């Protein structure tokens, strides 16, 4: 039974943690709060027990499938787990902070350089993917946000890449990137003559772009849709009034559109960064379990070292570090955007 439990415990730390946008609690009106304080806990329990009953299954499930495996993974990150010990699992020798130390500071350990290579690649991947997705999505949304014929058809077509599963995206682009007979090099070299030599995409330094571009391609439609909904909610009067006052398109975008869709940017930034950091399917399907020194991401590294090389201690420690990094990101994000998340009054 143990390994069954074990596998999801690592996996859960790999998957996206359930990071909910902290919902702002509207300050309760004063008189109600005072009345509630007078009530005894028993009264409150009786009043709310329906609500508790309703959320109970969800809470139990969350604890079972999420919290416990996550704590299990955290615990295992202090264990010496390798080929010879992993079958003991919880009983494996205690390793203290050694897993963390060797990852972070031991330059003699081969896992150390691999880890920092993957950190660098993941940062590059996340930065460009999120930038491309949000920037491109916003640009297309602005272009589509005007009355024109066939807008619904265009919008539907724009959504197509979003419904393609990541796995299929990676297979398709994997073929398109092939240097000898892929469509991309055919366009760049044979049809348009933009380049004189065929670039190689799936090995060497270009690999990181071979995964960033399909990721943007896939994420863009959703971002576009959200931005378009936001743009359409902006009252026409605002733009008209600004136009009468002599504001050009850029100034209207800068001072009306952008501030009004700031909350939408914030939310997508939060999820986009987390989602990109946890990317696994696209590099693995396109380039195999080891995408090479230029495209090895955190998740491909962790999965490979844990599940192919039995270094579950390393995997658990690296997963914990990624999770901590994501928590830091959420705090940074919250500090930057908390005011945008308050209800507009």
């Amino acid at each position, binding site marked *: 039974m143990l390994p069954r439990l074990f596998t999801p415990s690592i996996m859960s730390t790999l998957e996206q943690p359930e990071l909910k946008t902290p919902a702002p609690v509207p300050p309760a009106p004063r008189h109600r709060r005072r009345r509630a304080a007078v009530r005894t806990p028993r009264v409150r329990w009786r009043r709310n027990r329906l609500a508790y009953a309703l959320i109970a*299954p969800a809470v139990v499930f969350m604890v079972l499938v999420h919290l416990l495996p996550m704590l299990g993974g955290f615990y295992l990150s202090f264990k010496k787990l*390798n*080929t010879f010990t992993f079958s003991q699992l919880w009983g494996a020798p205690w390793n203290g902070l050694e897993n963390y130390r060797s990852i972070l500071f031991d330059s003699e350990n081969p896992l150390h350089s691999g880890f920092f290579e993957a950190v660098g690649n993941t940062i590059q991947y996340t930065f460009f993917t999120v930038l491309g997705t949000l920037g491109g999505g916003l640009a297309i949304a602005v272009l589509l946000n005007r009355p024109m014929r066939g807008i619904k058809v265009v919008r539907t077509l724009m959504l197509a890449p979003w419904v393609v599963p990541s796995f299929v995206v990676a297979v398709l682009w994997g073929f398109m990137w092939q*240097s000898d007979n892929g469509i991309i090099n055919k366009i760049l070299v044979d049809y348009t003559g933009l380049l004189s030599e065929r670039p190689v995409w799936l*090995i060497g*330094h270009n690999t990181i772009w071979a995964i960033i571009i399909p990721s943007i391609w896939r994420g863009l439609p959703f971002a576009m849709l959200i931005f378009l909904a936001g743009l359409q909610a902006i009252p026409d009067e605002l733009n008209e009034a600004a136009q009468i006052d002599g504001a050009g398109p850029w100034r209207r975008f800068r001072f009306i559109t952008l501030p009004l869709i700031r909350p939408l940017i914030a939310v997508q930034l939060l999820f986009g960064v987390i989602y990109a950091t946890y990317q696994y399917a696209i590099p693995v399907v396109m*380039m195999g379990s*080891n995408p*090479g020194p230029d495209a090895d991401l955190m998740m491909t590294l962790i999965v490979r070292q844990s599940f*192919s090389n039995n270094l579950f201690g390393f995997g658990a420690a690296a997963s914990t570090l990624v999770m901590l990094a994501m928590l830091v990101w959420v705090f940074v994000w919250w500090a930057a955007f908390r005011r945008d998340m308050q209800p507009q009054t």
Partner: protein
Amino acid sequence: MRSRLVIAWAIALFVATALVVAACGGDDKSSSDKAATTAAKKPSGTVTLWIMNNGPQPVPDMEKTLAPFTAKTGIKVKVELVGWDVQFDRIRNAAVSGEGPDVTQAGTTQVPFFAALGGFENLNSRVKDIGGQPAYPEGVWNTTKIAGQDGVFAAPWFTEARAIYYRKDVLEKAGVDPATAFKDWDSFRATLQAIKDKVPTVDGKNIEPFGQPGKKAFDLVHHVMPFVWDAGGAELSDDLKKSTINSPEAQQGVEYFAGLLKDGLMDKSQLERDGTQVESQFKGGKIATWIGGPWTLQSASRTDDKNWVQAARDNVGIAPMPQGPQSQAFTFVGGSNLMMFKSSKNKDAAWELVKFLSQDQVQTDYANLMGMFPARKEAQSKVGEQDDNHKQFFAAIQQGRTYAPIPQWGQIENAYKTRFGNILDSAAGQGKPYSSAVVKSELDAAAKEADTLLAQGG
């Protein structure tokens, strides 16, 4: 208010009951199995066999093979397919948890790792039933053990080795005699050069002299190590305590292989593909030579394999791997073995199954279905007599060598694969600029990683 509460609790109760029932369901089945097997004396009942995707129709082929077994012994066999992509995890988890089938197929190089988990039966006292060591070639038998330990943890099932595939028509056009074309490293290189110079196209379509997959292929190491062995190198020191992949001999072997890429004799765009895709490139007439296993030879006679173009299908030639500077030629020999789980509740019936699958004729027939060689000595040599190409493959098996049978081998192979992949990428002009120093530094890194893994054993 009250009725809503009742509904909510009912839902919660329903979910909880469903969970409990589901959990009990699992237990129920295994306990009834146990009762059934302890009652029987003569091996009977049902055994579960895990197989990987051997050939295009793995499960029907296996069921057909086992029909006479069930008819004769009354033992039913449940054949379950476990894909090669997940088999490592599944077999490992089954061995550790004790919840698995009775018998599983396993790759020959995986046996030491699985055996070291402790979840597999030591077959030492049983293997005399199938002829023991004398019935198998030495290299094949070695894949049933863990280095430095007593015990036999597997029964060899089928064998493969890597050999050179070439196009007879292309060689003819290039004016190269197939008998000497792949004799040694120099003639191999000269052959590729002749194809490059004299046969750039076949039927108006470009053809590259040689193509091999890069790091995307799970078996990259199987295609590089023969050259390391040829040059006198080895994967590990004789006492299996240290990596020797950064020795000058090993480096010479790796540089020979990478040099083919650097000098344009090997098609660099094949590095972007995985093993199956490059195999299709040979079948499709895009590359003139290629290193592969025996199953591709068998597929040339299958009309339902549409990857073959006619010219390639009609002109397949096989040659054993070339001799290196030490006048020795090696190739990787692998295949699959059968392992019995300690947790099996029906070991005698499971052993009957292994015995059946170890019969000469059964092995030969099944190996033929997949385009593999049987693992047994006599059966193997018979298959080798089929025709000229099979004779060449049989010769290749005789040059066969496998990796040190230690539990960490799989991990070390992964480390080597990563570094070999980097070296090939840089020889293809991608990544770091190619030089001897870069090869050396990658091999040093591979050796360092391997040493760390070897140290795990204590």
